[in-house]
C-alpha cells in the first residue's frame, strides 16, 4: 500500500522529497531493519554518530535523531522509499532505541485519551463561554457593518470600476477584517476578485453576494437559530478551541481518506484532508495549518482508512471535523459506496444549501461514474447518463481518464454548485488520490 506516490506525498516540500530519494540507497545506511509495523535504520550523516531514523507504519509516525525541523525529514523519507514499497525484504529484532520510542508513543496516546476523557467530564460554564463569545462578536459586528458599507459602495459604483482597481482596493478592507478578528470575512473579501476570463464580473458578483449573506447574518445574529449562529461563527472565522470540542459527542466509524488539498495564502499553509465515514456517510475535512516555513505534520494519506472517532465542529451541518482518537492501524481503503446517481448526490447538496446558504464547496461521493473528454473539459456521466462537469488541470484530466479507461469508477470531489473539483477516484478496490 505504500507506493512511491504516497510516500512522496508525505514530504513536507520539494527539496525534502528530492533529498529523500537520494537517501533511498542501501549505501547510505549503516543498519536497517523492519518488522510488519516498524522500519528503522541508522543513516551516516556528516557527524560521527549516525542518525537513528524510525517509522511506525501503522499511522505512519516518524522519528529521527537528526536536527532537521522538517517532518518527516529526508532520512525518514529515504528509509521509507527504500523499504516501504517492498515490506519484508529485511528483517530483524528492533533495537532498544526503537522499542523505547514505541513505548513513549503508547504512553503519550494513553495520556491524551485520559485528557480527552477528563475534559469531557469537566463542567463547562455556559454563561461564561457565552459572554466571551459575545465580547468577541461585538468587535466583529462593528467590523461587519463597515464591510457592508464598503460592499454596497462597490455595487453602487459598479464592478467595472472594481475590476480595474489595484490590489489595495481589496487588501484594505481584508486587513481591517483581520484586525476585527474575523479572518473568515477577510478571506471572503480576498476571494471576490480571484477569477479570470471575460466573465470576471459574473464570478465576482456571486462571491460578493455570498459575502453579503454572511454579513447580513452576522448583523442579525440574535435572531438566528442556534445552529445557524454557529455556522455564522465558522464563516466569519472565530476559532473554536479544543476545550469547546471536548464535550461534544464523537462519531465512531471507519474513516476513509479520500482527498487532500494544500492552499497557501499569506505564508499560511492550509491543508484540508477529506474524511468520509463508511457507515455514517458523514464527510468533512480536517484542517491543518502551518505558518511560514513550518511543515505540515499530518500523516493522513489519501487512499487509506482508519477506525476512529471524529468530532464535528458545531453548526447546522458537518463543515469541519477533528480527529478525537484513532486506532493504531491504518489500512488500504477500497473506496466507498457513494451516491448511485448525480441527481441523488445533488439533492444532498440542495439540502445542505438550504441550511447554510453561503456554503462554498460540498463533498460528493458518487458510484459508477464514467469519465469522458468533452473538448477541453472532463465530464462524469452516471448510469442514467446525467452529467456532472469536472474542473481539473489538463494533467489531472488525463490521469483520471487513464486510471478509469472510460469504465465505471467511484469518484469523490468538492462540488461548487457548478463544477466538481475531483479529489480521488477508485476502481478495482484501489483509491487513487488526485
Amino acid at each position, binding site marked *: 500500500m505504500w*507506493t*512511491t*506516490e504516497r510516500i*512522496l506525498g508525505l514530504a513536507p516540500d520539494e527539496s525534502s522529497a*528530492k533529498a529523500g*530519494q537520494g537517501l533511498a*540507497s*542501501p*549505501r547510505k545506511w549503516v543498519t536497517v531493519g523492519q518488522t510488519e509495523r516498524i522500519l528503522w535504520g541508522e543513516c551516516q550523516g556528516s557527524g560521527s554518530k549516525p542518525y537513528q531514523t524510525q517509522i511506525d507504519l501503522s499511522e505512519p509516525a516518524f522519528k529521527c535523531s537528526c536536527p532537521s525541523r522538517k517532518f518527516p525529514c529526508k532520512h525518514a523519507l529515504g528509509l521509507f522509499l527504500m523499504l516501504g*514499497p*517492498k515490506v519484508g525484504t529485511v528483517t530483524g529484532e528492533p533495537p532498544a532505541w526503537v522499542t523505547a520510542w514505541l513505548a513513549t508513543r503508547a504512553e503519550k496516546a494513553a495520556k491524551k485519551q485520559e485528557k480527552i476523557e477528563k475534559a469531557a467530564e469537566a463542567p463547562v460554564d455556559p454563561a461564561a463561554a457565552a459572554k466571551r463569545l459575545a465580547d468577541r462578536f461585538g468587535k466583529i459586528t462593528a467590523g461587519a457593518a463597515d464591510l*457592508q458599507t464598503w*460592499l*454596497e*459602495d462597490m*455595487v*453602487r*459604483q*459598479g*464592478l*467595472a*470600476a472594481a475590476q480595474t482597481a489595484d490590489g489595495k482596493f481589496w487588501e484594505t478592507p481584508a486587513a481591517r477584517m483581520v484586525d476585527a478578528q474575523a479572518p473568515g470575512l477577510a478571506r471572503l473579501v480576498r476571494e471576490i476578485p480571484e477569477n479570470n476570463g471575460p466573465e470576471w*464580473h*459574473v464570478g465576482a*458578483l*456571486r462571491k*460578493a*453576494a*455570498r459575502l*453579503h*449573506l454572511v454579513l447580513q447574518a452576522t448583523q*442579525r445574529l440574535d*435572531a438566528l437559530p442556534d445552529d445557524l449562529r454557529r455556522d455564522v461563527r465558522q464563516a466569519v472565522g472565530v476559532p473554536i478551541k479544543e476545550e469547546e470540542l471536548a464535550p461534544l459527542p464523537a462519531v465512531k466509524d471507519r474513516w476513509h481518506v479520500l482527498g487532500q488539498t494544500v492552499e497557501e495564502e499569506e505564508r499560511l499553509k492550509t491543508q484540508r484532508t477529506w474524511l468520509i465515514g463508511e457507515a455514517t456517510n458523514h464527510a468533512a475535512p480536517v484542517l491543518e495549518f502551518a505558518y511560514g516555513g513550518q511543515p505540515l505534520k499530518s500523516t493522513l494519506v489519501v487512499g487509506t482508512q482508519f477506525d476512529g472517532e471524529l468530532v464535528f465542529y458545531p453548526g447546522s451541518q458537518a463543515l469541519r471535523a477533528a480527529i478525537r482518537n484513532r486506532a493504531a492501524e491504518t489500512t488500504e481503503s477500497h473506496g466507498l459506496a457513494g451516491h448511485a446517481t448525480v*441527481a441523488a448526490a*445533488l439533492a444532498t*447538496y*440542495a439540502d445542505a*444549501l*438550504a441550511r447554510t*446558504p453561503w456554503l462554498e464547496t460540498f463533498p460528493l461521493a458518487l458510484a459508477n461514474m*464514467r*469519465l469522458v*473528454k468533452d473538448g477541453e473539459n472532463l*465530464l462524469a*456521466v452516471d448510469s442514467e*447518463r*446525467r*452529467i*456532472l462537469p469536472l474542473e481539473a488541470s489538463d*494533467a489531472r484530466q*488525463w*490521469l483520471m481518464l*487513464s*486510471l478509469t*479507461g*472510460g*469504465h465505471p469508477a467511484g469518484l469523490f470531489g468538492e462540488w461548487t*454548485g*457548478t463544477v466538481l473539483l475531483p479529489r480521488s477516484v477508485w476502481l478495482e478496490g484501489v483509491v*487513487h488520490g488526485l
Partner: protein
Amino acid sequence: MASKDNIAAQLAATALIGTERAATWPEPGGDLAPSNAAQPAQTTECRFLTSVAAFDVYQRAGHMPSERSQEVPHANAETMPRTAAGAASLLGRVLNGPQAHVLPEYLQLCARSGQRVHERYLPDLLDLAARDEALAPLVTPVLGERGRWLATLNPAWSKLFADSTGGDVWETGSRAQRARLLQRQRASDPNAARTRLEAVWASEPPEERAAFLATLREGLSPLDEPLLEKALDDKRKEVREVAADLLARLPLSALCRRNIDRLKPLVKAKRPMLGKMTVQIELPPDTFKDWARDGLAPKPLLEGLGDRATMLARLIGATPLAFWHEHAGQNAAEIAALTAKSEWRDAILLGLAAASTRQEDAATAKAVATAWLQIEKSPVLPHHDAMLQDLIAVLPGETREALAAPFLANRKALDARALYLLLKASTHAWSHEFSRTFVRTLLDYVNATGGYSGYDAQQLLGDQVALRVDPALAPAANLLAQGAPDVRSNALDKFLATLQCRFDLHKELKP
C-alpha cells in the same frame, strides 16, 4: 417570469455598471422574496445584493444535470498483465526522481516480460514518447489497450501510432519527418524508398537532397549505385559528400575501383631475401586531378597531418579492405599491425580506421584499435578520439572488453585517456566478469586517490557507465563502497544509486 439565463444576465449587467446608474433589476418573487419585515430600512444596494444572493442560491440548489446522448467511449479489455506493485512503484521513482536515465531499460525489461505499465504512468510516458523519438518505440509496446485508447483521444499522442507509409507526410511533412519516413521505408522495402526519392530528386532543394540521400545508408546495395553516382556531380557539396561516403561502403562500386587504381601505385610489397615480406606505403603526389569528384580533397586537413598525408588517409578510408590482401599480399589487419614501423603510421591508421568503420569489418577494426591504443605518443591521434570511438562501436562486446582488460588491470590508471574512450564507446551490456573487474578497479582507484579524480573518470562515472555494468553487482559494489570517499560531484554516489536502481529493476521485472 423571465428565463433563468435572462435574469442572471440582467443582474450581471446591473452589477457591472453599478446600481447608481441602473436602479432596476428583476427582484425575485414568490418564495424567494426576502422577508423585509425584519429589516424595514434597506438601501438599494443591500436589496440588490440580496436579490443576487437569492437567485444564486436558487440556481445552485436547483441545478439540473444535463443528459448525455452519446455513448461514453471506453478502452478494450487488456490482453497483457499489468506490472506488479513493486515494479509500478519503481516506475514512479524513475519518472519523478534522479534516475530518469534508466527509463529505457525499464521499458525494455517490461516489454520483454510481456507486461504493460501501470495506468497511472501512461500520460507521463505518452508525453515523453511524443517528445522523444528514440523513446517512442520503447514506450509503445508496454502501453497496453488502455494506453493505445488514451492516445487516440489526444492529438499530440495519436501521432505515435500514425501509419508509417503515410503518403501525406511525404507530400506535406517537414524535412526531418520526410527523412524519417524514407528511413523507415528503407528498412522494410529499400527499392521502393529509393524509387520514391528518385521520382522527386530533380525538384528537391539541396538540403533535402543531402538529408534524403543519407537515408540510403539503411539497406544500402549495388542497386543504389546509379543514383549515388549521379549525386557525385551534384551542385551542392553536402550532397556530393554523402554520395561519396555511401559509394565507399559498396566494395564493388565504380568509385571503389577508381580508388583501388589510385592506391595501387602507392603500395609496394617487397620480399627481401631473408625474413618476412614488408609493405611500403608512399604518399600520393600533390596533384590530385580528378580525385575531388570522388570526395577526396585535402581540405579541411585532418588535424595533425599535412595535405598529402591527409589525402592518403582519405584514400585508404574509401578503398575496400580486400585491396590489401589482393595487392599487398597481406590482409588489412596485418597491415595495421605493421604500421608502427611506417613513416606515415598515423595517416595509415586513420585511413584503416575509417575503412573498417565504413565497411563494418570487425577483424580489421580490432587490429587497428589494438595498434592505436598501444601508441603512447602521437602528435596526431589524440585529435581523433571521435574516430576511435566509431571504430570501437564496430567491435563486438567481448572484443571491447578484451581490449580494455589490460588497462583495467593497472588499478592506478583509471584516468588513462585510452581506457576512458574504450569504456565510453563500450555501449553494450558488460559481462559479469568485466563488470566485476571494473567495479573493483574503480573502488581501488577511489580509495587510492582519496576521491580525487581527473575529469574523465568523473564523467565516465556519470550515467554512461552505470547503465552498462551488470546490475547484479549492486550489492557487492555497495559493500565495497562502504566508507569510501566520494569522487567529485558525488559521481561515485550517483554511480551506485543508478546501479542499485537497475538492480531493483531487474529483480522486479523478471520475465
